[in-house]
């Protein structure tokens, strides 16, 4: 198992390298520069700025320098925020994004499995139809539509929850963003869990388990649920990537000071080094979390375990 994980990590390194290279060169062939947005900038001053940020050097040299500094853990200076560097900006936003993302993933995963299990056990009942209708809406409707609608309903009409802001992750402030972010994952996992539950409920080994007189909860928890988890785990990879892109929207809508919002602001300000840094963070996370999902999968299903 450890061997497998290490081998997957080795494959992840070139992937990450491709990402960094692609992102670096894509950003540098941009027609405009990061200082275009400063009004009435003197050409000589602009030249000095470019020099100060290494932007006057040949592209390959810049690339080499960037990789070298990256290897030393330095993500470079931010081009828009003169007083802070990229690593500091990311370190500021990361805890917010992580708290938001983690809570949403936990809610999506466990909430979705619970809904799926209930729907499957009460197949074709009113509960089943309601859950599946909501799940279908959740899968189909993008976050940037559900989030404002949730705010409109729970924030404005009912007045139960604050409309925006982070407030150091206070519970009331975190509910709406987390729910909006978790919704697509929750809906997807509900559908998958229900489908695979129904499949394994009809399997022969479940009939055997019942025939030997196991109590129903044991049949469900031990014999039905475990194989039904497999498709859920393989769905986690795409779900994580989806949650990260969703978190960019959520942070923008609710005005949360996370790295998703920093990414959008960086894109609007052409803050090259900040965008690059955040893409690297996101990509690393996606790769690591996918690896984790694969390891869990191997743990659950002995057949895919290598050798």
């Amino acid at each position, binding site marked *: 198992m450890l061997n497998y994980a290490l081998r997957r990590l080795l494959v992840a390194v070139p992937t990450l390298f491709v990402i960094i290279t692609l992102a670096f060169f894509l950003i540098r062939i941009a027609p405009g520069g990061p200082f275009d947005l400063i009004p009435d900038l003197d050409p000589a001053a602009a030249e000095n700025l470019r020099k100060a940020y290494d932007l006057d050097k040949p592209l390959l040299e810049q690339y080499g320098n960037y990789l070298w500094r990256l290897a030393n853990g330095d993500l470079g200076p931010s081009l828009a925020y003169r007083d802070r560097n990229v690593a500091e900006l990311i370190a500021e936003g990361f805890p917010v994004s992580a708290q938001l993302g983690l809570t949403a993933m936990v809610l999506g995963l466990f909430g979705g499995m619970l809904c799926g299990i209930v729907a499957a056990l009460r197949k074709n009942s009113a509960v089943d139809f309601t859950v599946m209708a909501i799940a279908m809406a959740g899968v189909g409707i993008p976050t*940037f539509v559900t989030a404002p609608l949730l705010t409109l309903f729970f924030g404005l009409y009912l007045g139960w929850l604050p409309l925006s802001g982070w407030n150091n992750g206070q519970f009331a402030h975190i509910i709406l963003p987390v729910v909006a972010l978790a919704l697509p994952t929750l809906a997807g996992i509900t559908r998958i869990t229900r489908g695979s539950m129904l499949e394994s409920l009809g399997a022969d080994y479940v009939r055997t388990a019942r025939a030997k007189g196991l109590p129903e909860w044991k049949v469900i928890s031990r014999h039905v649920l475990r194989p039904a988890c497999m498709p859920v785990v393989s769905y986690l990879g795409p779900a994580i990537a989806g949650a990260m892109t969703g978190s960019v929207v959520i942070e923008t809508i609710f005005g949360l000071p996370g790295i998703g919002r920093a990414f959008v602001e960086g894109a609007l300000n052409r803050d090259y080094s900040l965008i690059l840094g955040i893409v690297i963070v*996101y990509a690393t996370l996606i790769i690591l979390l996918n690896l984790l999902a694969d390891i869990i999968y191997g743990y659950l299903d002995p057949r895919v375990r290598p050798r």
Partner: protein
Amino acid sequence: MTAPGRSLWQDAMARFRRHRAAMASVWIMGAITALAIVVPEFWPNSLDEVNWDYLESPPTADNYLWFGTDVNGRDMFSRTFYGARISLTIGVLTTLVALVIGVAYGAIAGYRGGTPGDLMMRVVDVLYSLPALFFVIILVTVFGNSFLLIFLCIGAVEWLTLARIVRGQTLSIKEKEYVESAMAAGLLTPTILLKYIIPNVIGPVIVYVTLLIPINIIVESYLSFLGLGVQEPYTSWGRLISQGADEIGTAPWLLIIPAAFLVITLFCFNFIGDGLRDALDPKDRTR
């Protein structure tokens, strides 16, 4: 030999017509498309005309302001269908870009096979693990948000699944006798690909394309929502939703109307995709 009866395509059409949700979706999408073409041209209020007497007015029968007006007094009816025009156009064009790249790449990788084919698919695997939307954002930031570039960027990122589907199909088709006979007849590889391989992978490709259009509409809306897509005075559903989201306290219709159209469109395309899958994929005909 001429056999009487229906062709495969006629069979598929008949099956598709029996799929009620898909047929209803076709009609709804037809109506929205027609309105998207007609309204911006002929509606009495144009999309950037300011109605001073109706600033942020709720939907009303006066002055043809059926969907109300936005903060600047611009007619939402006109803007919603102009947004429909942009969103649908981008959805279709980006899908075409993805279709061309994906089909060509997948067919070549599958037909060539061996190490070069595997290498081509390894590239797809690596690209697959990249956070695609972030690359679209970078591309849009880099090349500016002109209409043409937005759809090129989205299309350039969304072709991966198509390449996989086409490659899988090609791998099995190239073993068929008619391809072998084409090779034996000494036809050139591009001819074999265009005439014998690609026409036969079209079924699953059509199904995936109808599912890719709503995905691309979402991507465009996502970019416009973040302010990285279409710029004023032009608009798209994503942009309208984003502006509506800023005004939910005072003017909820600005959010709800474009959001409703977007969601209806997404569901329609998904139903059409379901219908096409049932019609075109004879293996999985459960209904």
